[in-house]
């Protein structure tokens, strides 16, 4: 860049590394930040540092939390016999928004993908099995992504869990609610046909 002071340039570069932030946005954020009051700046930097320092993985379900055990795992009102298995913590927020699911979660932090060198050892699979072995789980819902990797992960875990006498289910695939059939992409329609229910 050259036309900015070195310190500002560094800030722009650091912000520009963040996902979804391009050069223009990084500049705008940087200018906004240098115009903040000292108080606001310390609050922001403190928030950054403490978030990084305090956010850990829940010891039970491995979602991100700032406590040893996350709020969902700690909540006695949640159904303790059902575990919903997801690929990452963001998936939990998506499911929680529905307010329909009242069980527990388990975050794998990835999916099996040999091309990326990710095997069962690299995701929280063993932890899931231990967890099922230790507690009285009746059903495990596989809510991994509808990709070949997500499917492989669900099948792999399903094969390990079923022999333990636990019911294993997989989320259905189909037409989004409120969507017109004619605008649904072909592969989703095929899956919806395969997963059709009697009414």
């Amino acid at each position, binding site marked *: 860049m050259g036309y900015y002071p070195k310190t500002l340039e560094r800030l722009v570069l650091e912000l520009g590394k963040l996902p979804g932030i391009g050069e223009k946005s990084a500049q705008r954020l940087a200018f906004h930040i240098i115009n903040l009051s000292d108080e606001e700046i310390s609050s922001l930097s403190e928030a950054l540092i403490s978030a990084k320092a305090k956010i850990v993985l829940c010891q039970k379900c491995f979602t991100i939390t700032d406590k040893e055990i996350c709020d969902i795992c700690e909540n006695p009102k949640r159904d303790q016999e059902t575990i919903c298995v997801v690929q990452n913590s963001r998936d939990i927020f998506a499911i929680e928004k529905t307010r329909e699911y009242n069980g527990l979660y388990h975050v794998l932090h990835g999916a099996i993908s040999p*091309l990326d060198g990710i*095997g069962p050892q690299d995701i929280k699979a063993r932890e899931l099995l231990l967890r099922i072995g230790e507690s009285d789980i009746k059903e495990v819902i596989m809510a991994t992504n509808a990709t070949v990797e997500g499917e492989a992960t669900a099948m792999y875990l399903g094969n390990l869990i079923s022999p333990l006498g636990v019911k294993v289910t997989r989320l259905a695939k189909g037409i989004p609610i409120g969507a017109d059939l004619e605008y649904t992409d072909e592969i989703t329609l095929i899956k919806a046909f395969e997963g059709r229910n009697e009414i």
Partner: protein
Amino acid sequence: MFIEELKLIHYRNYENECITPHRGINIIMGENAQGKTNLIEAMFFLSRGYSHRASNVAELAQWDHDDFFMNARVVSEGVKHTLSAKSHQGKRQFLLDGKVKKRDKINGIFNTILFEPDDLKIVKEGPDKRRRFLNQEISGFRPEYHYILRDYEKILNQRNSLLKSIHYEPSLITTLDVWDDQLIQTGVRLMNHRIRYLHRLNREANNLHQILSLGKETLSLSYLNNIIDSLEELSEIKNLYKKRLESSREEEISRGSTIYGPHVDDMIIQINGKDARRYGSQGQQRSAAISLKLSQIEIYYDNTGEYPVVLLDDIFSELDEHRRKSILSLLNKTQAFITCTEDILNDGKGEQENRHIIEIVQGKAQVIINK
């Protein structure tokens, strides 16, 4: 389905050209290197979203230009559409009636069947050419095939990668089962599509070949795969596939790749009961390739209720009078574009209605006969 007007701007050797073809047969005539194939390529590109000659879109732009633009007025199911394609900084973009569309959303609006000299390879060369032919043609009217193929390739890549990893990390073998299951599920769907299609293609291509050979030759196609030996085993295909994978596990791990599945499928083309690839003459191979390709006209019609636009690049010069006439008679319901260096329809014996000749000289098009 037909094309009413084609506009090309900064495309290949066309500076700014507008062509208004005939609804029937269009002869694109011109000396070599004037831009006849470029015109064919433009229509192919608009219909399929890629070029059959260039893998890099930037190659399609005129020398000294970075971007090109093409625009076609097409009539599909009686409705007029404007279909445009442009490239900007090496990226392609498609517009349907002025709105930007993803490439796979323009499928079905304007479809072409192309025959070009390279298509001889379907008969003459290795199995990959025949798989490519099957994949392209089936995707043309079965959109889901494209997705199944894409998934199959992903699963195959993952599985091959896993087979290699098992070499140095044997414990990973526990995850092979799930990839086997997915390979079987998706692979069987792919094979079913191919079997159904080949069944139809076999009938149609033999009809055409009979016509081209004056009834002297029969063409037959059979599906070759390494899972089932005959179609009677089709109902058992999943179990057989599983058994194959189980019994070849060690070998697959030591090779680091998947041996069984539709990725090694082939189609055997026989003329009078003999393998055309090995024993066919040049002329027989050419007729077989033409029959395979032009079968798409009727198959496409059966599946969609419309005839596609037929593009024949540089095949007429090699054919005798009888075959030329037979091919022309197949095209009587379609709009067709035929490139050649001379007026092939002018045999001095009439039957010259529907003759529309577009002469191409150095990237300029001129209609010289319009009947």
